[in-house]
């Protein structure tokens, strides 16, 4: 079953786009109404990015596009043409993601894990702009991400410890 069960997915893939995802170039065809998350998960099988609410409330699908944190469920794939995208799968070549991953494991900031890729991308976007954030700044940075298991204390601690 497709990630996004909307009617628009039946449209023709008539536009060629180029995406640079985690430093690798992809050329593929998309329809004008297809979302970026559907391209990442269904077409490219980059399933580390999670599909949650599909309306920008939960942040599970957060990725970094041209340096900005975005909900990939609310971006049209065509609008991402020629952009540089960083997803959780980019951890191998990204110091900050690696640090955050280690910190999440060390602090036990993962329970079911569904929100974790989005949380780490939000942390990554924060730390790039602000290497020494305060607790309030961390909480603000992840306020667009929902966790329904552990609560936020350990997640905040993990992001904090990734800066040390």
């Amino acid at each position, binding site marked *: 079953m497709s990630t996004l069960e909307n009617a628009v997915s039946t449209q023709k893939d*008539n536009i060629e786009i180029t995406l640079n995802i985690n430093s690798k170039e992809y050329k593929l065809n998309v329809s004008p109404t297809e979302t970026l998350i559907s391209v990442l998960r269904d077409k490219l099988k980059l399933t580390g990015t999670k599909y949650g609410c599909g309306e920008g409330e939960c942040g599970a699908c957060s990725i970094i596009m041209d340096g900005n944190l975005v909900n990939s469920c609310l971006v049209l794939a065509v*609008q991402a043409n020629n952009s540089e995208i960083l997803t959780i799968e980019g951890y191998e070549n990204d110091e900050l993601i690696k640090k955050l991953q280690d910190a999440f494991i060390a602090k036990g900031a993962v329970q079911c894990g569904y929100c974790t890729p989005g949380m780490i991308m939000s942390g990554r976007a924060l730390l790039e702009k602000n290497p020494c954030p305060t607790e309030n700044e961390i909480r603000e940075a992840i*306020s667009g991400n929902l966790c329904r298991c552990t609560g936020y204390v350990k997640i905040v601690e993990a992001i904090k410890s990734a800066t040390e």
Partner: protein
Amino acid sequence: MIYHAPKTLKEFASIASKYGKEAAIVAGCTDVLIKKNFFDNKKTVISTNEIEEIKKIEETEDKIRIGAGVTFTDLLCSKPIKKHCKALYEAAKVCGSVQIRNRATIAGNIINASPAADSIPPLMVSDATLILFKDDKEERIKIKDFFTGPGKTKLKHGQIVAYIELDKDKDNTISFYRKIGTRKALSIAKASVAFRAIKTNGNLSSVNVSYGSVGPTVINSVKAREYLENKALTESTIEEASLMAFGEVSPIDDVRSTAEYRRLVVKNVMIEELRPFIDN
């Protein structure tokens, strides 16, 4: 379905007028991708994201001109907005989440015409003018005259909101924007209030008040505004103005809140936010 990403307003106008109501016009997409039927019966998607001329914030002596494609993050990063459009800056801070603010545009927030939109109350109290374009023809309309109902505006097919122009705050301008919601980020307002006035020797002039989420559109105050004009802020004038606010909003019960609570919130926000401006 075809996709267009014009680079100029002129190019946009020619594509948009060709398709008329069969065009789905999109910018940041944070609202339209949630609407299930947005792309139904459309022949083209026109993205305004590549029109560079509408991504700027320009400053003249007494006005600020904001391009339609300016995002909420752009507003927060703009020194002129922080300095001269305080109520709008406050609204940008509490709009959506980091992710949403990075994509959502100011014109998108306006055209979506939600009575709960964060940018509309501060633009109303700043007496903003929308500059619309269609077929190379410019039209100006005050934002307070733009909305006709929830999700409904006077925008015509093929027409675009290109710029938003508003008066700069003066040194003696006092203002606030306050939203009451259920969650820190991403909350859709249960109620919101924007206020702006000039305070000279203790007395208010050019008073404007507007209320969000308490009617079919954002409501522009008449009673509270007229009452406060030429008055000084005291405990009793604030109390009186807050009761007028309580009386002039027309909220409903819905999933987010009750009419009763919304009225009370508007009244209490007026008191809480105006009190710090009382002269000792």
